[in-house]
């Protein structure tokens, strides 16, 4: 059901039946260390390259996510997901091990939001089960967007640390005591002309602000309707900027937080916090999912954010547009 300009509320119930998270070695020492389902001791994971490790990570996460609730991959309508690497190789290659239809998505770090939106719409329609999965890996992202790993460059203070990790969720029609996807607001690509590829929080904050404000306007809700508004990977600076931008428009987000800036603890020198397509899916599948299951959170607005850039676009002098999708996750009380 369309509400307002960009928001869609789902008529049927779409349950998040299962979630599984796999965290890299550095993430497993961060703030969410007690929430992860599985932890990698080293980020090569006995694979020949970091790219292959990322394929293996996604394959593992999808398999375990299904095994947790005894669902066969053959019963799933589709695997949806993406990552940051060229031609979304890790996700596509991990899907070749399952006899399940596959749809590859790309929205930079907001891919998980896109996957949840499309997946929940399909489950709201005729599909029975959909797996949404994204991943990112520090070493592969470094090679994709920045420099060789061993090059002695100095990280700028605005920069973020790409999260090594992957998270998968299973969206399903099967009723149970699970959190629900209630709806979503699809974001627009917004460009405020920022050109510094290190400061992605600043580039994404306007898009996140636009999506969140549009969401409130469309639904007529106020920020305190939600227990938590959590963005994807804005980092500390991006979170402050988002708060400032929303305040200017008259929305005070006191319950705002950010997956990326919560990821690492202070003594881990990770700049502004975590980033990457796996950042929000990892936090969602571990910390958020657990708190939703425990009912310590009941209404969450989950806003993965993405910065659209490539190595070449930055060199050609293009600015960095951002995107954000807001997904409404709720618990129902009457179980």
């Amino acid at each position, binding site marked *: 059901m369309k509400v307002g300009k960009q928001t869609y509320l789902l008529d049927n119930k779409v349950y998040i039946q299962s979630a599984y998270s796999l965290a890299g*070695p*550095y993430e497993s020492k961060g703030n969410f260390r007690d929430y992860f389902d599985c932890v990698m001791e080293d*980020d090569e994971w006995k694979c020949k390259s*970091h790219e292959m490790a990322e394929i293996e990570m996604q394959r593992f996460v999808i398999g375990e996510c299904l095994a947790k609730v005894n669902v066969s991959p053959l019963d799933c309508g589709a695997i949806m997901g993406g990552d940051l690497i060229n031609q979304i190789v890790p996700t596509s290659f991990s899907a070749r091990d399952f006899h399940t239809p596959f749809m590859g998505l790309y929205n930079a770090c907001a891919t998980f939001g896109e996957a949840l939106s499309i997946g929940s719409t399909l489950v709201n329609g005729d599909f029975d089960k959909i797996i949404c999965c994204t991943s990112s890996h*520090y*070493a592969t992202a*470094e090679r994709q967007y920045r*420099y*060789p*790993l*061993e*090059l*002695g*460059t*100095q990280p*700028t203070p605005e920069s973020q*640390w790409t999260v*090594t990790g992957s998270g998968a969720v299973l969206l399903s029609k099967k009723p149970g005591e699970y959190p629900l996807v209630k709806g979503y607001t699809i974001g627009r690509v917004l460009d405020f002309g920022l050109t*510094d590829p*290190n400061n992605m929080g600043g580039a994404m904050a306007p898009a996140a602000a636009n999506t969140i404000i549009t969401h409130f306007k469309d639904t007529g809700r106020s920020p305190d309707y939600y227990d938590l508004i959590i963005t994807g990977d804005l980092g500390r600076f991006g979170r402050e900027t988002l708060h400032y931008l929303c305040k200017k428009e008259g929305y005070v987000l006191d319950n705002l937080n950010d997956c990326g800036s919560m990821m690492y603890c202070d003594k*881990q*020198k*990770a700049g502004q916090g975590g980033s990457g397509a796996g950042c929000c899916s990892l936090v969602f599948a571990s910390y958020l999912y657990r708190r939703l299951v425990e009912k310590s959170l009941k209404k969450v607005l989950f806003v993965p954010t993405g910065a659209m850039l490539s190595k070449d676009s930055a060199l050609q002098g293009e600015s960095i547009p951002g995107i954000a999708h807001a997904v409404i996750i709720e618990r129902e009380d009457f179980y």
Partner: protein
Amino acid sequence: MEMFLGYVKAFAIGGLVCMIAQILINKTKMTSARILVMFLLLGVFLELVGVFKYIENFAGAGITIPITGFGSTIVKGAKEGAKIGLFEAVTYGFRNMAGGLTAAIFFGFFFALIFRSHSKKA
């Protein structure tokens, strides 16, 4: 004592050159390749205008170990070759680069065969 003073000078000037690079990095967010090219060209320029040898006499390794030294040896080679003829003028600069380049390429090849790159653990 004189030798010790040489080290102090090399330390001070070398540190200063690197500090200028760091200021550029902080202010302009230049990447390492650009910094290296800039300082190479700075060395070429200093040698061309004839200032480099005075700095070298003062600071020794403080100016020759930074990539500026690489730039200056190139120009020195070109200057030497120009005395002989046109062909030598355009090729002797590269001849002076040969030592450093050979070392970089050979060791690059050699170490890349042995070692693998690893993720940073900050």
